[in-house]
């Protein structure tokens, strides 16, 4: 009997394999997929009706109709408030609900207050959802429109705003998020603190500092620019980003804050004037502000990179390093960030440079070097805005570098800091001795 079973097992296996090969054969996959998606995203997706018989369908429809009516009645009676979507402003900010889709009607804001004191305000016409609301873990999704948030900084608290495939990782900060799902354009405007935006085309992430705005389109265009000054607490006085961003993305022209750039400017406008060796600095900065990073880097290099590295202040070096990174010149970026760290070791911007150096090394496949930089960040700036990210990346880097004991130490330390953090699953898998590959890296 067992022999026969074994033989049949072989037959099932071969049959399975033959079917898999038939499915893997080159075919009309892409058009079929597109047709299916088009049908689902159409006004009312309907199943085919040709060969099924109308009677059955009508009966099914009636049944479904009755069932859904019954479900609706049940929901209305049993779960009061489940369908009550806060459409108007909530005076003073009601406790943030978790679950239902939130819609701020035209003409009124929808403010939400979280237990930690953080507030999120959906601006008129915007919609989203609170995906998670726990003591150390909050996630809000914006489906479309704009939200303004003020997140209260607390150690170990993980705050994430999702917009389509993008994520804004937040530590104590004040910022605005615009998301146009139809155009696929995200704009993050940072007023205080710092955030890291990742997901989608951003890959490992782009850190943002106060006074910066990041705009990213699904076409891969990424640009940072000075943030316009908010004209109200909610920033409602600004141009509506969803529309403007769409236009900007399609035309390829960045919209720079119309002469009202914030006092702190990523590209260095607030810093002291550059020394004589960096005469072309305004030119590359202007190019970088327009998102022409490669051209900006070429101009900076033409003027003498070494002279720039010697003359620029910390802010300017950070900007130049970012320009090199966005221009796809990791070597120049590394050199620039290293110069910042060596020339201004006590400047808080050195922390950003150290973090960027870790990331560059990791992207370059030098996980052991990356671990050194991330460890340095955690050690020097334990309360810094990128500390949790750095601690998590330290876990990832040491694991990838095959440094078992160091990876376990980093994992333990990370879990103490952020038990629900982005890298918690990875850290646990390392401590449990599982293959880190089983835990998806964030």
């Amino acid at each position: 009997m067992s022999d026969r079973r074994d033989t049949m097992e072989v037959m099932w296996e071969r049959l399975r394999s033959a079917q898999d090969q038939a499915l893997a054969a080159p075919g009309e996959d892409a058009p079929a997929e597109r047709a299916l998606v088009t049908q689902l995203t159409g006004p009312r997706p309907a199943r085919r009706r040709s060969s099924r018989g109308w009677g059955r369908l009508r009966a099914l429809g009636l049944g479904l109709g009755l069932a859904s009516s019954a479900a609706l009645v049940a929901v209305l009676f049993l779960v009061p408030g489940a369908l009550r979507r806060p459409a108007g402003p909530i005076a003073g900010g009601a406790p943030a609900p978790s679950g239902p889709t939130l819609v701020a009607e035209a003409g009124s804001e929808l403010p939400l207050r979280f237990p930690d004191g953080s507030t999120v305000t959906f601006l008129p016409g915007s919609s989203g959802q609170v995906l998670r609301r726990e003591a150390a873990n909050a996630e809000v999704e914006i489906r479309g429109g704009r939200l303004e948030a003020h997140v209260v900084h607390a150690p170990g608290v993980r705050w994430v705003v999702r917009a389509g495939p993008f994520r804004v990782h937040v530590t104590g900060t004040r910022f605005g998020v615009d998301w146009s799902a139809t155009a696929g354009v995200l704009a993050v405007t940072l007023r205080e603190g710092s955030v890291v935006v990742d997901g989608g085309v951003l890959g490992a992430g782009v850190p943002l500092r106060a006074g910066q705005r990041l705009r990213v389109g699904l076409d891969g265009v990424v640009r940072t620019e000075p943030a316009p000054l908010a004209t109200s607490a909610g920033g409602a006085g600004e141009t509506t980003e969803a529309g403007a961003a769409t236009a900007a993305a399609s035309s390829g022209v960045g919209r720079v804050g119309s002469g009202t750039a914030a006092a702190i400017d990523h590209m260095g406008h607030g810093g002291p004037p550059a020394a004589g060796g960096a005469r072309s600095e305004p030119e590359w900065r202007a190019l970088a502000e327009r998102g022409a990073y490669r051209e900006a880097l070429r101009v900076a290099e033409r003027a003498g990179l070494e002279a720039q590295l010697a003359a620029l202040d910390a802010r300017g070096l950070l900007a130049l390093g970012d320009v090199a990174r966005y221009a796809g010149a990791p070597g120049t970026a590394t050199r620039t960030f290293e110069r910042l760290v060596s020339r201004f070791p006590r400047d808080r911007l050195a922390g950003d440079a150290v973090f960027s150096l870790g990331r560059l090394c990791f992207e370059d496949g030098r996980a052991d070097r990356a671990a050194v930089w991330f460890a340095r960040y955690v050690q020097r700036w334990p309360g810094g805005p990128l500390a949790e990210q750095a601690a998590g990346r330290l876990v990832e880097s040491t694991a990838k570098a095959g440094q078992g004991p160091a990876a376990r130490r980093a994992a333990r330390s990370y879990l103490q800091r952020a038990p629900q953090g982005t890298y918690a699953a990875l850290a646990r898998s390392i401590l449990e001795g599982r293959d880190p590959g089983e835990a998806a890296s964030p």
Partner: protein
Amino acid sequence: VERLLRIAPWADDPSAMDDAGCERLVAGLRAREPWASAALVHRYRGHVRRVLMRLLGSDEPGDAGELVQDVFVRAWRGVGRLERPQALKAWLTHIAVFTARGAIRRRRRRRWLTLFAEVPEPEVAWAGPEMKEAAHAVYQIFERMPDDERIPFAFRNLEGASLEETAEACGMSFATVRRRLARAERRFHKLAREYEALTPWLERR
């Protein structure tokens, strides 16, 4: 559509479809986000096709294409009832099994009405002649088995599923699926003796 697919590049990355990825996708589907529909199809169309092929034996562009469509439309409509977004794949599998069962029943009714006795040729184009004949015999036997035995039996053996996965996909309790599988195996082996193409597999070793 190309653009929508680009909104969710993680849909292509199996490691990104962890619990949080599933939750995100389900939230997008519930909000009727076009990118979520694109991601769902892009990520799971292959899986759905495979489950349908296991149970039906064929993946002809016509019927199977429409069945795949049925599965996704059902999922799209019913996503509000999905209790655990993390179980998205298992839930889609269940819908595919349910859809295949409907197709088997319709096919059987049609055959009864039209006295059309032929079973569609199973799609194993890449297999050798021996395997092709065996596959044809297997699906002919399946046609002679009760649905409640055939579906879990085919799913478990052809998909290589565990008992738990089979029970979940077929919407049966663990005890029921085990009982039906035992009964199905006895029936399958009894019927298999009638097919010459399966003799080598029954007698080998």
